[in-house]
């Protein structure tokens, strides 16, 4: 139940976009059409679900103070936390590369639809953000995986919803200066207001 709650909370209440503004760049740039938004959203869910537990293992067995105990008693006091950013981003970049290669090999159709978005994901803030938050909150590995998946799902829902709204928006008369990014920001704000209603859910 606990794991389910964490995933649900990450999806709706602590939504990556509306509560933490993570992954905004690609959220705004790739939300013009539902089909492309769907592709990117799926790729983000996929990569988040993989990188969060991998980074958890890294944090637990290499980076944390005393984490290197398994190498021998002399490593007991080693604290490599300062390497956290570099290690996490390296894991994310190489995971993205790996995922890209695996998908290309086994499912050319999926690769065709995700292809161009995969490299973009390495610099999507929500991926690194999930790893950093997961460390801050002291999750276990199962909780971290659930958190990664839930965050990805929340991001996916948000970008699909925005893309659907923006497709309809083409037919409305928006003031010239507000076209594009401006009106999108205001819409995102209103969507955030709607997502606030989930706060009432007690988990």
């Amino acid at each position: 139940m606990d794991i389910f709650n964490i995933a649900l909370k990450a999806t709706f209440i602590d939504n990556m976009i509306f509560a933490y503004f993570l992954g905004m760049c690609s959220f705004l740039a790739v939300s013009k059409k539902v089909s492309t938004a769907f592709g990117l959203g799926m790729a983000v869910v996929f990569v988040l679900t993989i990188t969060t537990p991998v980074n958890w293992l890294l944090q637990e067995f290499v980076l944390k103070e005393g984490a290197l105990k398994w190498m021998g008693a002399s490593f007991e006091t080693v604290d490599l936390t300062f390497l956290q950013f570099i290690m996490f981003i390296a894991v994310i970049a190489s995971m993205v590369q790996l995922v890209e290669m695996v998908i290309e090999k086994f499912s050319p159709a999926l690769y065709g639809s995700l292809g161009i978005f995969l490299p973009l994901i390495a610099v999507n803030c929500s991926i690194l953000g999930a790893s950093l938050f997961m460390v801050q909150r002291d999750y276990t590995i199962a909780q971290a995986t659930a958190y990664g998946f839930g965050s990805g799902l929340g991001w996916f829902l948000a970008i699909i919803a925005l893309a659907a709204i923006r497709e309809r928006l083409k037919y409305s008369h928006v003031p010239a200066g507000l076209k594009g990014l401006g009106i999108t920001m205001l819409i995102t704000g209103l969507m955030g207001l709607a997502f606030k209603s989930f706060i009432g859910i007690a988990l």
Partner: protein
Amino acid sequence: MSTETVEVKEKVEKKPAEPLFSKRRRGIVKDPLSDDNPITIQVLGICSALAITIKMEPTIVMSIAVIFVIVFSNLIISLMRNLIPGRVRIIVQLAVIATLVTLVSEVLKAYYYDMYKVLGAFVGLIITNCIVMGRLEAFAMGNKPYDSILDGLGSGFGYAWIIMVVAFFRELFGSGSILNFKIFEAIGWDTFPTNGLMVDSIGAFMVLGVLIWVQRTKTGYVEH
């Protein structure tokens, strides 16, 4: 940190080839401030622009950190631009940025721990700030070091003034203060109604949306 970069700029003065502040170079610094602003026109670096702008103080620290990272990563990548193989350039760029961000994070932790606590994970998230990556990819990979420094300064300050304005309005209406100074109590308006939405994420979207509107109307930029 920003004063250091000014010094670097003055040292390069001796080169006779092109005037230090030629029209082109002034353009490199000036364009990102308004006509080609990284946030309002190019839509980059929005994540941190919204997350840390609840108060002005963390915003200023964040601006300095981002300017530092942009300028130095631009410089380093520009110096190495002929050595980096095209296929692995993303990883190399990320490694350089991550190292600089770690530096910023450790300095904050050592000398400004309160602020480090407030900014939390968002210091680390400078790594994935699209402005930094974007400038490396679009400018530093193909330009000389001095131009790259100027470009970094321009983009950095273009980013800084936007998030400063957002933070000003959010702090003013959300907490009724400026730089933690209770401005409305000072002028005798004790009952100023503070707006919870401004502190919340929604206020950030709204303020930035309106700011983009104003800025684009001024520069005449229209998205199609």
